[in-house]
């Protein structure tokens, strides 16, 4: 295995770049907020051969957004000037909502999606409505508009809403 270049500034810039890429299905979240970027390794810095390796992991095995996300990462790094870009899709350790950033959870809530909450490991009635904050809610379906969400409705304000499941 080749020795890695340890240039914290350059790696930091790459993270900042990836923070501008958003999940195509939940556009309010960046791929860093979601915790699917697991590692960035610099094999040759931008000044030399520009070789970089990014490890990502899927939220759910069948997540249809993964191919798009990998393509978006490649595009951004190409624009930045990297010549060799490896994108590795790792299976283990398995992705968990524990990796979602606090900022990401707040963005979700502001967007109208109830963020994952340890108290509700299994989707149930009573998950707080992201619109009005009421706990007087009911579960409509454990499966929602994407694999990672459940569907609820608020009895207080009557708005239906998604809950990002603990996973």
């Amino acid at each position, binding site marked *: 295995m080749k020795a890695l270049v340890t240039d914290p500034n350059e790696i930091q810039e790459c993270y900042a770049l990836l923070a501008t890429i958003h999940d195509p299905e939940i556009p309010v979240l960046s791929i860093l907020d979601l915790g699917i970027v697991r590692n960035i390794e610099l094999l040759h810095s931008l000044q030399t051969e520009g070789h970089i390796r990014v490890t990502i992991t899927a939220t*759910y*095995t*069948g997540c249809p957004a993964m191919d798009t996300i990998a393509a978006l990462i490649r595009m951004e790094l190409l624009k930045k000037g990297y010549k060799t870009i490896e994108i590795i899709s790792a299976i283990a350790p398995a992705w968990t909502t524990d990796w979602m950033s606090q900022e990401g959870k707040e963005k979700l809530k502001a967007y109208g999606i109830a963020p994952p909450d340890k108290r509700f490991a299994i989707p149930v009635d009573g998950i707080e409505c992201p619109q009005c904050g009421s706990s007087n809610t009911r579960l*409509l*379906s454990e*499966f929602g508009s994407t*694999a990672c969400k459940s569907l609820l409705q608020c009895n207080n304000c009557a708005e239906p809403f998604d809950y990002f499941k603990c996973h």
Partner: protein
Amino acid sequence: MTNASLIDFTLYLADSTLVLGQRNGDWCGHGPVLEQDIAITNVTLDLIGQSRSFYQYAAKLIGNGCTEDQLAYWRNEREFKNALLCERPNGDWAQTILRQTFFSFYQRELFTQLLHGADTTLSAIAEKSLKEVRYHCRWSSEWVCRLGDGTQESHERMLAAVENLWPYVGELFEPAPYEKALQIDTDAIKINWMDAISALFAEATLPPASLTTTFMQTGGKNGQHTEALGYLLAELQYVQRSYPGCEW
């Protein structure tokens, strides 16, 4: 452990999840209500995702430039190793749901065993998939109760589903040569599976079922299928067979 056994077992897992996913996918746009249409297609998405992980691993083990697409689209019926249960037709909602319950409960036991197995890639895929399988078990078994302990009509339909599908569950616990080589403990899976199903049937007011009083169909694990699989593969593989290597 031989590499050939590991490849065969990985293909068994890949084919079973692909074929069941393809079956469930037929419900897209036809679910009894919108929420359940979305639920069954979400389950399908997970199954196809799992099958891709297994096919990718099998392709890597086979080497020589083999790809997941070649394995899914260019193998014939006799080469598919999926469990017979997975290829059985959808029937009505009761039959689809019961098939899913039987398979998800089986996956839960098998994947739990793989977590502690010798092969680290299979352990990793199992760990990731189990998170999904637990949702599938919960959702599908709730439906078995709802229909079994529902109206007379729904109860009768669930009874008919049990009668149709039961002869295909025994195969899950009959070890294929590759399972024996990998020391998969199908007896342990059978005991846990049967306990869970017995408890579910009791809750769903369905009569107790026995694995020993029904003649069990076997063969899928070794490529001998019911006639249903050929039609399914013809549809699944049509585009790649007609336009080899096409992409969009």
